[in-house]
């Protein structure tokens, strides 16, 4: 199974490199220093999770970058990281704008960061696991479960394969499923 891809957007290069060292056995990690560069990369490539420095220097803050990314990718988990801060209110506001979690760059980082990442990916994958469970109910996985009025047909097996191999269609389906569930959660139909 392919490693999950993580992009770190942080201009504090030493910290970003240490985080990469810490995570690279389990994840495929890339690092960029500037917000614009990160946004460009996300437009071009697929990432499972983003780590963004909340206190990013330059034209865009970490929150600005996150908000911009959320405009075109609502489902990617984003963990904000920052140095020690005294005033938490701005950070809470940033989290309310779409961050999945927040981690401080302190001495407990080797424990906290991997845990936060696993947690964020797990939250995202709970939907996929539910989907897989439903598909497994079919006695014949090649049975057509979806048709379109333009004539395309999909079996449960095909859909699951596309999702698992993370193809373009699979990604789209996965993101659609997450959107469905998020919308239903917002409407109070399912518990998160």
């Amino acid at each position, binding site marked *: 199974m392919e490693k999950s891809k993580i992009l770190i957007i942080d201009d504090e290069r030493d910290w970003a490199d240490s985080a990469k060292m810490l995570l690279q056995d389990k994840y495929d990690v890339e690092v960029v220093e500037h917000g614009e560069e990160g946004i460009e990369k996300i437009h071009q490539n697929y990432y499972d999770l983003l780590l963004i420095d909340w206190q990013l220097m330059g034209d865009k803050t970490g929150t600005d970058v996150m908000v911009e990314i959320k405009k075109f990718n609502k489902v990617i988990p984003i963990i904000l990281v920052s140095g020690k801060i005294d005033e938490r209110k701005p950070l809470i506001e940033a989290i309310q704008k779409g961050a999945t979690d927040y981690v401080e760059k302190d001495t407990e980082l080797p424990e906290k960061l991997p845990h936060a990442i696993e947690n964020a990916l797990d939250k995202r994958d709970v939907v996929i696991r539910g989907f897989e469970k439903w598909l497994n109910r079919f006695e014949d996985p090649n049975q057509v479960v979806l048709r379109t009025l333009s004539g395309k047909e999909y079996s449960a097996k095909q859909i699951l394969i596309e999702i698992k191999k993370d193809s373009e269609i699979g990604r789209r389906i996965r993101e659609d499923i997450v*959107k469905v569930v998020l919308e239903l959660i917002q409407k109070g139909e399912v518990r998160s």
Partner: protein
Amino acid sequence: MHAAYDPPSTFASSCAAEVSSMLVSINCTFFEIQGPKACKSEIHKHLLNFSTDTHGFFNYGHGSEVALFGYKGEVILDMSCAHLLRRKICYVISCLAAKEFGRKVISNGGICFLGFGGDFEYSPFYEEIFRACANSGAKAMIQKKTTAGEAFKIMKETFDNAMSNLVKDSNNGNWIVLLSLFRDRDYLRLLGDGSASLW
């Protein structure tokens, strides 16, 4: 217009049959073009000869961004003859037709165009749910005499309710069905004058 010749068009045709029954029940005059008769010459003949002032055009079958298809995939209406739907309220349960084709119909004098801007998806195991959603707008316009705009809103609500009921009834299990309903609802488009009504 509907023409059952493969599984998706058979489903679409079953939706159309329900609309025919509604029209019969209110003694409405209508022409039903179906099966092998759902061909270009027949459709064009009817559209050219149909002279009443207010009328709807209900289409159920395959579609693309630029055309509607009849029996065995014959192109029955495309960008070059979109003017044939002028002064008509179009209700189109076909894939993608509410894109270029729908816009062309409106720019050529069509009153409004209610349809889908993407692939209309449904699960063969839950056809009743999809039929109810696909026909909810037609039902509103025919039986409740709503405007196209109100019918459009009712369709969205019907999709929403179907999703909610599925979640309540089956422990959030029917992902494919939820996904399809969600996409179909998002693909719904109303072009032209939403204040128009059939009556």
